[in-house]
C-alpha cells in the first residue's frame, strides 16, 4: 500500500480501550493516514461536527454511547457525514451481534484480534471506491 496515495486521509478511531486506541492509531499512521481518537460515541459525534473525517473505525462496547447507537445516529442524521464509511471493531463474535452492527449502519465488521493485512486491504479498497466515485 502506497504511503502517500490515499484518497481519504483522516480517520476517526472511536474506542474506550487505550491499548486498542493507540495500537490502531500507530498502525494507521504507519501506513500514512492521519488518525484522531474519541473515547465513546458521544465524543465521536462532537468530533464529527467540528472536523471533517473520511472514515470511522469504531468499537461496539463503549460507555455513554456504544457503537450501534453511534452508527444509527450518523445514518439518521442530516449532516455532511451521514454517509461516512464506518468499520466496526468488536470482540463479540456471535452472528447476531455482527448482524446487529450491520443493521445499525456499519459497512464492515472486524472481530478481534484484527488481521492487520486484511484491515490494510479493506482501507485500500474503500480508498479506491472513494476515488472512483469522485471521478
Amino acid at each position, binding site marked *: 500500500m502506497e504511503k502517500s496515495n490515499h484518497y481519504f486521509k483522516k480517520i476517526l478511531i472511536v474506542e474506550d480501550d*487505550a491499548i486498542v486506541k493507540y*495500537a490502531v492509531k500507530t*498502525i494507521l499512521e*504507519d501506513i500514512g493516514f492521519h488518525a484522531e481518537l474519541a473515547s465513546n460515541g458521544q465524543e465521536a459525534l462532537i468530533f464529527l461536527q467540528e472536523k471533517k473525517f473520511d472514515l470511522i473505525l469504531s468499537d461496539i462496547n463503549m460507555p*455513554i454511547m456504544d457503537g450501534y447507537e453511534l452508527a444509527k445516529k450518523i445514518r439518521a442524521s442530516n449532516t455532511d457525514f451521514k454517509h461516512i464509511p464506518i468499520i466496526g471493531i468488536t*470482540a463479540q463474535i456471535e452472528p447476531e451481534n455482527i448482524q446487529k452492527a450491520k443493521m445499525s449502519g456499519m459497512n464492515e465488521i472486524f472481530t*478481534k*484480534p484484527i488481521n492487520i493485512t486484511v484491515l490494510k486491504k479493506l482501507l485500500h479498497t474503500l480508498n479506491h471506491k472513494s476515488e472512483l466515485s469522485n471521478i
Partner: protein
Amino acid sequence: MDYRHFIKIVSEHQTPRIKPLYLDNSCATKQIPDDFSNAIIDIIRIIDQYFNELSKGKPIIAIFGLQMACIAIESKLPCARNRIFTVENKDKHFCCTLSYLPTASEDLQQIKDWTHSENLAIDFTSGFIMDKEQYICKALHLSNSGGKTYGQINDQKLRAAWAQVQSRTQH
C-alpha cells in the same frame, strides 16, 4: 467465559483495595476459555504489587473487563510450547486486555461510566502482564522497547490451562 463468571472469579479473589465491578456490555468475554480462570488470581496479585503505580492515586482499583486484544503478539512460542490459540495463524499469541477503573468511590454500584478506565495487556501464551506501551511495541514489532512488564502468570497454571484448551480442540 461468561461475563458473570469473570466477575465472580474477580470477586472470589478480591482484596480490600482491588474489587470487581459489574458493568454489563462493557466488554466481550466469550472468546476467553474458562480454562484461564485460574490465572486471574495471579493477575490480581500482580496488580496488588504495583497498586500505587496502577491506581493513579485512587484508593480502589475496580476490575470490570477482560477481552481479546485487538492485535496479537506473534512469535514461535505458541508452536514451541504447544499453546496454539489461532489455528489459522499459529504464531499468534493469545492476548487479552484487562480493563479497570481507579476510583475513589466506595459505592461501586453507582459507577456506570468507564470512560476513564485503564488497561493492562495479558499475554496468556507467555504469561506476561504488560502496560500498553510495551504491548504495542511487541505486537507491532517497534524498535523502541518502551513500557513495562509487571509480572508473569504462574507457568504451571498456564500449562494446565493450555492442556485443557488443546485437549478440547483435538477432540
